[in-house]
């Protein structure tokens, strides 16, 4: 291992894990404070499988609930995402930046370089978990909450090894392919599917055994906060992480290094072929550079290729699934207290509307919209500045406000496309499952989701306009979204804090039960107004400041 490669990589990558850990630590404090003030015995009535996903033991109290929901649930997903993002760019990031040639122009072997970067990934991840570990001990002391026999060390160790598992999976893909987007995307997909599968499969007895094929099972099924470390599960994740780390090192040794070359895509081959030239030109030729918003849309089209079919298929499948699970879900639904369901967007699991609300509209639809709007909002201004292309763009006779508004238009179009995919998916699922859901109410819910997504996309845009920094724009918008989601989920659990949920934009999305009651125009106006204000702020801020120049 080379100390200076390790040090530089650590210094380059410490911010996201630190921000994530500090945010989660704050949420733990906040969550435990809320749980302390309410009767939490209702958790005992929940289905075993559900509680196991969130690492919530029998006889849970305020402490274990906070650890389970915030650390083992959202926290683990967040830390997994941060680790896999770091793993994805470990090697491929240097190739994308065109710096790997310079680095390896020194007497450094590829193995040394990869090992140093892998070690840095492990180190920054470990640093973040030390913060989580310290907070886990300090919070109950500060709040005077009894944590009993809970094994916090076991929880933190299993979270750490689980994060390394996904981090090094992305590292392996990064090493073998040199493509950071592919490495991050595939790993994130596997992690999310694994999380959902481990949560849903145990609900059906005949499918419960399949959960073992998903790696998340080896983190959550043993309830480490209650039962300590299952060394068999630890070994699965730990050995897996080591194997992926080794695979990444081997992978980068076996292939040609990628240059900054953008490569040839299918559409490029079609443009070059005389037979398909005309059609390809219509799709990817002069048409895509005819206007700023169209070019922006063209740059982000890969988002739609992934998200639109995913949202449509998931939405369609849930209808027939509800029909098949109808009786099981009804009995489960009766066990879920309303206060808890509010955490997942609310809804009665025994009704199709409630099931769709929990399975799709509670998290999946907003997340898919956030991905689209925050990515576009971040790239719109801060991304162009980061790539040093904004100066050239603004050397043309276009106003800065025009650039902001055209790129905002792309964001709106993309959000509507994703919402339409969800709408047609849910409407189709209702039709296939013969659920009889109201089409107008589905449309109203999708419209509110669109406005919610645009509000956070607008925030990313405004932060990018104010600072010209992509990290502030994206992390800022994602951070506010996560905090808003949790505020909307947690504050209503306690009567004294319930009214404060209205500060969260999420409140204006589902609190009116639009799947049952249709459009709440007041809530739509608030979300729409928020979006307009943020875009207007972006216009003003961008017009006033100096453009950044990188490099």
């Amino acid at each position, binding site marked *: 291992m080379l100390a200076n490669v390790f040090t530089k990589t650590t210094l380059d990558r410490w911010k996201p894990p630190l921000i994530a850990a500090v945010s989660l630590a704050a949420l733990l404090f906040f969550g435990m404070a809320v749980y302390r003030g309410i009767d939490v015995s209702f958790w005992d009535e929940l289905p075993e499988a559900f509680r196991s996903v969130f690492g919530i033991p029998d006889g849970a109290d305020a402490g274990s609930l906070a650890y389970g929901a915030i650390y083992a649930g959202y926290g683990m997903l967040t830390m997994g995402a941060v680790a896999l993002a770091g793993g994805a760019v470990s090697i491929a990031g240097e190739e994308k930046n065109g710096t790997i040639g310079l680095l390896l122009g020194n007497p450094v072997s590829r193995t040394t370089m990869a090992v140093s970067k892998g070690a840095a990934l492990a180190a920054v991840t470990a640093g973040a978990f030390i913060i989580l570990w310290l907070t886990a001990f300090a919070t109950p002391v500060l709040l005077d909450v009894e944590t009993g026999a809970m094994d916090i060390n076991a929880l933190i160790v299993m979270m750490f090894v689980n994060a390394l598992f996904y981090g090094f999976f992305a590292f392996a893909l990064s090493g073998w392919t040199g493509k950071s987007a592919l490495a991050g995307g595939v790993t994130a997909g596997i992690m999310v599917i694994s999380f959902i599968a481990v949560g849903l499969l145990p609900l059906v007895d005949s499918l419960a055994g399949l959960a073992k094929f998903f790696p998340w099972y080896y983190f959550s099924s043993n309830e480490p906060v209650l039962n300590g470390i299952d060394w068999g599960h630890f070994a699965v994740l730990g050995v897996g992480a080591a194997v992926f780390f080794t695979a990444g090192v081997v992978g980068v040794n076996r292939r040609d290094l990628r240059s900054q070359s953008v490569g040839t895509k299918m559409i490029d081959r079609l443009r070059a072929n005389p037979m398909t030239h005309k059609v390809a030109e219509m799709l990817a*030729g002069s048409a895509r550079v005819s206007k*700023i918003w169209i070019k922006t849309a063209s740059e982000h089209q890969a988002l739609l290729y992934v998200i639109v079919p995913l949202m449509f298929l998931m939405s369609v499948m849930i209808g027939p699934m509800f029909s098949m699970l109808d009786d099981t879900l009804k009995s489960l639904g009766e066990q879920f207290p309303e206060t808890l369901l509010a955490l997942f967007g609310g809804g009665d699991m025994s009704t199709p509307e409630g099931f769709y609300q929990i399975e799709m509209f509670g998290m999946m639809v907003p997340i898919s919209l956030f991905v689209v709007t925050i990515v576009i909002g971040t790239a719109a201004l801060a991304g162009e500045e980061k790539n*040093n292309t904004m*100066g050239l763009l*603004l050397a*043309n*006779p276009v106003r800065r406000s025009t650039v902001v508004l055209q790129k905002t238009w792309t964001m709106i179009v993309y959000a509507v496309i994703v919402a339409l995919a969800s709408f047609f998916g849910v409407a189709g699922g209702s039709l296939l499952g013969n659920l009889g859901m109201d089409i107008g109410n589905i449309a109203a819910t999708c419209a509110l989701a669109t406005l919610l997504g645009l509000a956070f996309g607008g925030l990313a845009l405004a932060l990018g306009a104010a600072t010209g920094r992509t990290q502030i724009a994206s992390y800022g918008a994602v951070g506010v979204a996560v905090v808003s989601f949790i505020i909307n989920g947690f504050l209503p659990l306690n009567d004294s804090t319930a009214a404060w949920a209205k500060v969260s934009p999420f409140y204006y999305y589902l609190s009116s039960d639009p799947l049952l009651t249709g459009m709440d125009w007041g809530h739509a106006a608030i979300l729409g107004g928020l979006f307009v204000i943020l875009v207007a702020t972006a216009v003003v801020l961008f017009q006033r400041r100096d*453009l950044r*120049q990188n490099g």
Partner: protein
Amino acid sequence: MTDNVAIHTQGLTKHYGKVEALVDLNLDIIPGEIFGFLGPNGAGKTTAIRTLMDEIRPTSGSATIIGRDTHTDSVEIRKHIGYIPGDLSMYPNLTGRDTLTYFSNLRGGVDWNFVDALAERLEADLSRKVGDLSTGNRQKVGIIQAFMNKPQVFMMDEPSSGLDPLVQREFQGMMKEAVDDGATVFLSSHTLSEVQRVADRVGIIRTGHLVAVEGVQELRSKAIRRVDLYFDGPADGAVFKPINGVRDAEVRNHHVSLSFDGSMEELLNVATSNYTLVDINTQEADLEEIFLTYYREEA
């Protein structure tokens, strides 16, 4: 007085916190001239151009291009400007032709026959993606986008970066032709030979301060000469330094080399009265020497 000037700056100043990147820049550049803006890295050349392009806003002072304020009328001005930024970056996933189409759609009035002629002249391949092009070939696309709408004013920040000598020559020819047609060129560079070849006047900037503005011919006619004196034995530089007009005398054993704009008679008197002069070689200084001399004097 901005009616008869293409570019006018008055007290143009830009600070980044405590760093004075550009200080009190006063310039008038007339239509139809190529103005060379010389200075080493970090002298403030790019800051000046970015301020004129309204990418960044001056801390104080103002500027006009073709009689219009560079901030309040920036959109109107940009209809008439061809711009090549320093460290040119473009969209890697677009081909050269897509890139030019994108900008031509924003500008309007682009003659594609002219674009094709420029591409042929520079031997630019517009069918390949910008991200797959070498630095020089990417720069060619940048040059074409600056020239393609036949602008009135060119703002160029190190435009020859990465170009091979043949393409540099072609590019210099393009600049001269544009000026012959009435355009104005603001050419920031530290490639002195290029400035010497094409510029009418030169501004020299140092740590944000404009230290001189003179015509290239005037600079060269300042009679600064490179003089090499060869003696039959070791010489002492201290003997020559007091002579009026001697700059940066270097002594290498029997050989004394100096920049000189004083009386040749006095120099020869001192040389022959102290040593036995074996040989003398004298030549007109080039712009590089003059430039370096300015810097040594200011330092």
